[in-house]
Structures are given as structure tokens and as C-alpha cells.
């Protein structure tokens, strides 16, 4: 099946997303009080989005199986561009080749955002980690993902680490493989 690489162009203003997300986070901070719980919830929300977003990604790009983790990293990079309109760099590969990072110099989620001092441990961008984890789980890849550096905390870039855990063989539909 051949498809053009022009992706779907339906877009919304990024500030609508920024502010909607910001308001949701603010509401959670109010409801949950403990910032660590908020971080966990944000990861969960990202996961919920990821498991549905992968479908959208596959149908729009028509991309096939990944051959190796490098391939996967490239595809997630494309997904960043499609969904958030930013292009991260894939950096810091571990020597074993099972861990890498996305480095973002801008991020629509954190535009117009400032973290107050008492919320410095809040992982505002955890939603991205969750989305990566959720999306990859749906294609039988079990990964961990976490925020290493955060522009909201004064780091020059936002760095999101992804670590390959294992392939989820059990989830294969019968007849495959």
C-alpha cells in the first residue's frame, strides 16, 4: 500500500491546547494536593491518550513494523512533529542501545507556563512520557519513560528518556509470528 507522506493537516491553535492542559493540571493540583500524585495522574492521562493516538498515527502514516529501536525512535520523532508540531532530537543513546532521549528545545505544552516554587517537583510534562508508553504498548513494546530535564525547572532543554524493557509477546494475536 503506497501512501503519500503528507500528513493530515487538521490543526488547532496550540494555545488552546496549552491553556486547556494547564487548567487541567491546575485543577488536579487543587484536587490532589500532593504533586507526586499529580505527576502520576498526568502520566496516566498521557497513557490513555497514547493508546488511542497510536491508531491515529498508524492510519495516517501507514507505517509498518519497526526493525529496531532506532527505527522506533525515528517514528516517535515523526509523531512529535505530527501531534505537537515540534521536532525533537534523538540523543543520548545508551551503549547497549536500549535507551535514548528526546530533546525538545520548545514545547507547546509549556508555553506560557511557570511553575511556582512549591510545585518544583511536579513533572508537568509527564503526559508526554505516558503517551509514549501507551502508544508503544499497543505495538507490543514495553518501555519506561520519564522526564530527565525540564525547561520549566531552568534546564536548557526538555529531555524525555525512553528505556526499552521487553517485547510483549503474549499480546500477539493468534496466527501472527
Amino acid at each position, binding site marked *: 500500500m503506497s501512501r503519500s507522506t503528507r500528513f493530515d493537516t487538521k490543526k488547532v491553535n496550540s494555545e488552546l491546547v496549552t491553556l*486547556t492542559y494547564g487548567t487541567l493540571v491546575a485543577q488536579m493540583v487543587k484536587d490532589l494536593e500532593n504533586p507526586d500524585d499529580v505527576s502520576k495522574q498526568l502520566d496516566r492521562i498521557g497513557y490513555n491518550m497514547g493508546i*488511542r493516538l497510536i491508531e491515529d498515527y498508524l492510519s495516517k502514516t501507514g507505517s509498518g513494523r519497526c526493525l529496531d529501536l532506532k527505527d522506533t525512535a525515528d517514528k516517535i520523532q515523526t509523531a512529535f512533529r505530527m501531534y505537537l508540531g515540534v521536532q525533537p532530537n534523538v540523543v543520548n543513546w545508551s551503549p547497549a542501545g536500549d535507551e535514548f532521549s528526546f530533546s525538545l528545545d520548545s514545547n507547546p505544552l509549556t*508555553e*506560557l507556563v511557570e511553575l511556582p516554587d512549591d510545585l518544583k517537583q511536579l513533572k508537568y510534562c509527564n503526559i508526554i512520557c505516558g503517551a509514549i508508553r501507551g502508544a508503544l504498548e499497543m505495538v507490543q513494546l514495553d518501555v519506561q519513560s520519564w522526564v530527565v530535564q525540564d525547561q520549566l525547572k531552568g534546564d536548557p532543554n526538555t529531555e524525555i528518556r525512553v528505556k526499552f524493557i521487553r517485547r510483549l509477546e503474549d499480546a500477539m494475536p493468534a496466527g501472527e509470528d
Partner: protein
Amino acid sequence: MSLGGRNRLSILDKPLSKGKGEVSLSCFALLFSEVVQYCQNKSTTLPDLQNRLHELGRRVGVKLIDLYFVRERNGKRETKLLNILLYVKSTFWKALFGKEADKLEHSNDDENTYYLMEKEPVVNRFISIPRDKSSLNCAVFIAGIIEAVLVGTGFPAKVTAHWHKGTTYMIKFEESVVGRDSQTDER
């Protein structure tokens, strides 16, 4: 207040972005779906759910007032009722949703009430309403945004969302607003 050992530019020291950034609709739709689910999990009744969405929308709206007046209007605010409504319908809607709202109408029976109509609000694109909750309109989130903008610019009003010709936002101004407006007309 500690600066964490780093000298950082505060958000107010940076130049205001042009606001041309775009994010995929799928991404927003899924995020909004999570927002609705979050509110739903927190609420026990339908009005409760609507109130929560409305409240979240209001907080978004408050932040958009200055942002858009500075960016689109050089910081000049509106003082007349009709002008602020047209501002919401055109400039504001265009900046936020990429197009103008479809229609603005004045109520026949009540001079304090206006209707802003939109066939397909972006938040409702991918939402199907369960049968037992047919009165739920998640565009109440947008109604919250409009309300915050009107209240925040000195035109106190209540804004609600209804299923009528797509979605209709009913804007009910406080009596004082219309009174004041006709007074300034006479001068």
C-alpha cells in the same frame, strides 16, 4: 523566594509569542476527552459535570483576555456592548479557533440576551453523547471561556451552551450592562 541557584528569565521578560503555533486536532480531541473524563469522575450529577467544565473553560478564558487584546488590538479594550460581542465573534474566535463564529443574534424577547451560534464547535467534533445524557453539551467549556472574557472586560454575563442549530451559546448580560450601554449612547 529562592531562585534555585539559576538566573532565569521570567515568563514576563520574554517577548510575547505570535501565537501561530499549531497542534494536531487529534491531540486536542484526546486531551479534551481526558478533561471531560476527569470532570466526570469528580462529579455525581450532570449539572455538576457541566459546572466543572464551565469552570475550567472560565479559567482558560481569563488567561486569553489580555493575551488576545495585546496581540490583536494593541492592548485597546472595547467599551461598547455590541463591539465586545463582535470582538468575541470575530477577532477572538478567529485567533482561538481559526475561524469566526457562525452567527450572532439578539433575542427578540429579552434585550439582555444574545445568542452566539456555532454549527460544530471543535470540542464536540469527536464527542458522541450517550442517550441518557442527551442534554449534555461539552461546549459548555467554550461557554465558560466566553463568560470569562465578557466578565473580565467589564460586561458581566452568564453564558450557557445549548443544543440548537448546532450549538448555541446563550449570553445573558446583567441588566446594568445594557443600561450603561444605552446611557453612553445618549451622550
